């Protein structure tokens, strides 16, 4: 694909790519609290604020809980709102994550994925965002710094779409993406500004019987986040689920529109397919690991092995049918999880993928690989072994160990 506009190449790490995208997206309010490996995002952004490069009200709050609460409130007044966090910070936001999605506030948040305590660990894994996958936030996992930049810009359009109105997390693997410098193509400011548009609001009926834009505005008073007892609460939740369903289509549309301008696409925006058309064995993973897996798939293909990869870019909403279709003809699947679901028979991504495959008549062998916890490196050699395991499963026509751990001392 060719780009429609001239782009400039900047050497940015993932965190800087986030900050640059947020700067160009014309954000009104940022409230944040420092936590490794997300800190660079807020540092860079505070420089933009101080330099007058953005017209953003910025505050370093006293905790992540306060940061997201402030973002929520700002978003409800109609402001475009952004924050960033990781690990324990995201865990501390847990309460407010549900309030934000329940209030249908389109806050965009970057998460530099990091392990959770205890023991304390500052390095990358996806335990933090996996633990929040039922919080009503859209979750997009990026593979590299370029995709981080592109995804943050797309996130504002997705979140603020009147059919969606849900908060979005853009997840980037801690250190592997947050701190690794890559060449990133960036748009001129005006292109991004045009793409993200001015925030739009649906019209709702107020208690005074007036049609008003859905935002806190003294001219048209309304209450946000009030009590909803057993008589109405359930309907609110059902509407959130409907918005998630709508998001599947909106994410795809926004991705395609962006791809036409940028010349870059990530599968269909929901799933990224790599040599899956005729693959007999395939891995399924999220985030930066896909880069390593793709290298291994290239090697295997050169050796004549029919290997493929499915990268789940959007985990929430889950592209359920897409996963089924993508893995239709694959005979053995290795689902890779960079977090654990203790006591849950395999990791979270394993649950999702096996779940999606259940309705199919052909039940491919599906095994789970837990890897890279607390920042442990996962080498191309280890990924090759995973594909070798899949070949062995096909040869023996049975699975001996359904859940395996990569590079673990046992």
């Amino acid at each position, binding site marked *: 694909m060719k780009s429609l506009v001239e782009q400039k190449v900047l050497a940015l790490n993932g965190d800087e790519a986030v900050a640059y995208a947020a700067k160009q997206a014309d954000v009104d309010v940022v409230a944040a609290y420092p*936590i490794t490996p997300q*800190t660079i995002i*807020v540092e860079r952004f505070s420089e933009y604020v*101080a330099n007058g490069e953005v017209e953003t009200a910025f505050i370093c709050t006293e905790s992540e809980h306060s940061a997201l609460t402030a973002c929520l409130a700002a978003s409800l007044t109609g402001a475009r709102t952004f924050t960033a966090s990781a690990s*324990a910070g995201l865990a501390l936001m847990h309460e407010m994550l549900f309030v934000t999605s329940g209030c249908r506030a389109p806050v965009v948040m970057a998460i530099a994925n990091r392990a959770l305590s205890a023991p*304390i660990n500052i390095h990358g894994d996806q335990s933090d965002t996996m633990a929040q996958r039922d919080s009503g936030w859209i979750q997009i996992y990026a593979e590299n710094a370029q995709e981080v930049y592109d995804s943050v810009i797309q996130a504002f359009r997705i979140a603020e779409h009147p059919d969606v109105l849900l908060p979005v997390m853009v997840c980037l693997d801690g250190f592997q993406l947050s701190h690794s410098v890559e060449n990133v193509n960036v748009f001129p400011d005006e292109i991004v500004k045009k793409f993200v548009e001015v925030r739009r609001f649906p019209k709702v009926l107020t208690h005074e019987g007036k049609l008003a834009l859905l935002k806190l505005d003294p001219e048209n008073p309304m209450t946000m986040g009030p009590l909803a007892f057993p008589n109405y609460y359930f309907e609110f939740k059902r509407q959130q689920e409907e918005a998630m369903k709508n998001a599947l289509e909106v994410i795809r549309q926004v991705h395609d529109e962006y791809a036409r301008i940028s010349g870059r696409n990530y599968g269909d925006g929901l799933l990224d397919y790599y040599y899956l058309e005729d693959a007999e064995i395939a891995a399924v993973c999220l985030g930066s690991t896909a880069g390593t897996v793709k290298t291994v798939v290239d090697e295997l293909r050169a050796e004549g092995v029919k290997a493929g990869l499915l990268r789940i870019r959007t985990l929430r909403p889950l592209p359920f049918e897409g996963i089924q279709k993508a893995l239709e003809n694959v005979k053995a699947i290795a689902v890779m999880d960079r977090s654990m679901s203790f006591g849950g028979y395999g990791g979270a991504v394993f649950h999702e993928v096996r779940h999606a495959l259940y309705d199919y008549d052909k039940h491919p062998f599906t095994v789970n690989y837990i890897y890279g916890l607390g920042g442990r490196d996962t080498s191309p050699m280890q990924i090759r072994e995973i594909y070798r395991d899949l070949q062995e499963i096909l040869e023996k026509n049975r699975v001996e160990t359904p859940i395996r751990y990569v590079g673990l001392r046992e």
Partner: protein
Amino acid sequence: MTETEAFEHPFAKYLRAAMMPHIWCSGCGNGIILNAFVHALDEMQMDLNKLVVVSGIGCIGRAAGYTNVDSFHTTHGRPIAFATGVKLAKPELEVVVISGDGDLFAIGGNHFIHAARRNIGIKVICANNFNYGMTGGQVGPTTPLEALTTTTPYGNIEHPFNLVHLAAASGATYVARWTTLHVRMLAISIKKLLQREGFSFIEVVSPCPEIFGRRNKMRTGLEMMEWFRKASVIENFSDPAKAEITPERIVVGEFVDVEKPTYEKLLHDKMAQILKESED
């Protein structure tokens, strides 16, 4: 060739040699604080089996790992809440929190004021380095006005906490402030802190040349210590409300030293009273 005799450092038993070298930058004050703490323990002949050290996130948070006692390194902001649990379950233990200004007064600020209000018998030593050092020097709750940090590149506009005033107003029974220049006074003060029954607090103004100082015209630990030397005045039992830290003036000394019954004691007495009444 003569064989050199291996001497064990007299304080070796207080620290975990396997954890050394420590992570602190040259010129950092955390080593001085840990040293003063260990001196106080040694002078008191503290029973290490009765001592618990709890720390939070931040550079000084490593203190829990470095001290050779039962210890816990909590998530950000939670050491006082954790220490509260230890003290309630095991009131006979000496529970010391060693943590930083960001941890204790921003994300953990609520725990501090409520533990002080309840007068839980825990002891809190705060290394105040004026910023979030470990995450790269962001503005925090003690950052002076106009100071430069990574998130206030043109000067801080947030009013900082006066920690000794906050502690006194919240109900702490022992409150002191020293800088890392006042090493002996600090060690003596830590001894007192450990001897008190109620919620006790020492703020240690500590140099952070690598992360805070170099953005604020104090590139070395020595330059930061020079600031402490010039600015600090010892005024024991002066009004903590008037002890704001400014570039010109750092009031140090003891501010509060009073006795009042601890939460654990009141809880114990209340339970005894209720039990007695139910027997009668």
